[in-house]
């Protein structure tokens, strides 16, 4: 039997012999994965929610009286061609009035008696997500304000600032939570894995006494850690998906509908890969540290 197979065989045999202990480790570890995954799920949906709110941010350029539709569309095309602009739509005076009527359907009397349309034509400008929380929006708005035919520009200064603060706050909270979770996760996982290593303390001692190198002793434990991490992360992700399908998705959709921001989604492929990969790396490191404590014989 060559070495890689020898070590794999030893690791599998150790798991089989200590299956109850391994089951406890994998169960405890997978619950940890569920908790971390839940935080990841809430965090990513919160971020998506804020981004969806951000999409509502736009710059409105009101055009001077007397600018006809052809000229208005030309200015809109000119604005849309700018690299900092995602899109620009021309809104004619009549379209603005019909929207106004629709929005104020219950107060239609307000508009009665008007001899001419008081609303100016405008251009609605969308900026890309990465610029929404930055001072770039202000610069772009000011630049648009200097274009010929543009009377006034509105871009919701306060909203831009608040949106930036919310994003920054979320990012800070996310980093702090990740660190706390990593710390707690490491503590729990290394404690669990130490149990399996401690159960074979005397075996490690014997191996060292008969001339085993540290890597010979360690390798099966590292393989065992990788297998435990993989099993726990897959089980944890599956439990989380079950909980999501069973209740979270429906609850999220109902809350989303009330807030007018749509439903929630499960972890993306890369987030699941991060959860599984992170668990495997943590288990590997925990096994490395746990065996290291018993190698000095």
């Amino acid at each position, binding site marked *: *039997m060559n070495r890689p197979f020898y070590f794999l065989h030893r690791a599998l045999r150790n798991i089989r012999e200590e299956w109850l202990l391994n089951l406890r480790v994998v169960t405890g570890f997978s619950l940890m994965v569920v908790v971390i995954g839940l935080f990841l799920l809430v965090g990513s949906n919160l971020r998506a929610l804020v981004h969806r709110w951000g999409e509502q941010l736009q710059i409105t350029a009101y055009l001077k009286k007397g600018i006809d539709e052809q000229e208005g569309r030309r200015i809109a095309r000119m604005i849309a061609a700018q690299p900092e602009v995602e899109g620009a739509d021309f809104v004619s005076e009549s379209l603005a009035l019909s929207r106004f009527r629709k929005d104020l359907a219950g107060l239609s009397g307000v508009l009665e008696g008007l001899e001419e349309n008081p609303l100016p034509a405008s251009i609605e400008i969308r900026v890309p997500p990465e610029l929404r929380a930055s001072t770039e929006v202000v610069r772009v708005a000011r630049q648009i304000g200097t274009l010929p035919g543009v009377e006034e520009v509105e871009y919701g200064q306060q909203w831009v600032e608040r949106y930036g603060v919310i994003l920054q706050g979320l990012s800070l909270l996310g980093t702090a939570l990740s660190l706390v979770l990593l710390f707690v996760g490491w503590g729990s996982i290394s404690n669990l894995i130490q149990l399996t290593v401690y159960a074979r303390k005397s*075996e490690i001692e014997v191996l060292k*006494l*008969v001339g085993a*190198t540290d890597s*010979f002793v360690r390798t099966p434990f590292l393989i065992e850690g990788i297998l435990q991490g993989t099993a726990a992360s897959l089980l944890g992700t599956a439990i989380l998906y079950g909980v999501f399908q069973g209740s979270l998705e429906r609850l999220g959709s109902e809350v989303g509908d009330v807030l007018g921001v749509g439903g929630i989604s499960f972890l993306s492929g890369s987030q699941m890969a991060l959860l599984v990969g992170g668990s495997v790396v943590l288990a590997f490191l925990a096994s490395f540290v746990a065996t290291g404590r018993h190698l000095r014989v």
Partner: protein
Amino acid sequence: MIQMFHVTKQYAADVEALSDVNLRVRKGEFVFVTGPSGAGKTTLMRLLFAAEGATKGQIILNNVNLARLNARNIPHLRRTIGVVFQDFKLIANRTIFENVAVALEVTGMPGDEIRKRVLRMLKMVHLHHRMDSYPPRLSGGEQQRAAIARALIHDPVLLLADEPTGNLDADITQEVMKLFREVNARGTTVVIASHDKALIESMSKRVIALEGGRVVAGAESPEEGVPA
């Protein structure tokens, strides 16, 4: 085979397990290390298989200076030594065959060769019929024979045994001693730490006596001079 020059082992400022020990054991010798509890027998053995380092002094073992041996090379040194303990130190969830084989597995020897050697060794210690049994199912004497088989499987130049008969009755003790004599007859140097005076007298071998961490008798082979 073994030379110790002014070896001291201190565990704390006021706990000296060995003090200025000088001794020499020639290749192929059979030596007992004796003394009352706390005399330093086990510490001396632990220094010899590099479980610990000396606080002061030099130990030369099979031409290797242990003070200069780095941690990476300790496993290679141990593959030239066989160690037997009073509590056998067998792995409870591995069969007797596997317990003996482990000493060859660590060297990377091919499986076929390991099987051949282990079977031969188990026959030698009369345990081949128990090779698929687990240690807890064996008697003390059988477990010690398995431990001896593991210590000898890689043809060590030196066999160290720390109170190897401490848990065995008189008949089995004689059986184990017979094994040690056979091993020694084939050229392996044997050092046994024991406080069993009757056993030591019955063997008529050189005795190194320790007391309070110091060698009080038998530091040298009769035909040699005092070490430097």
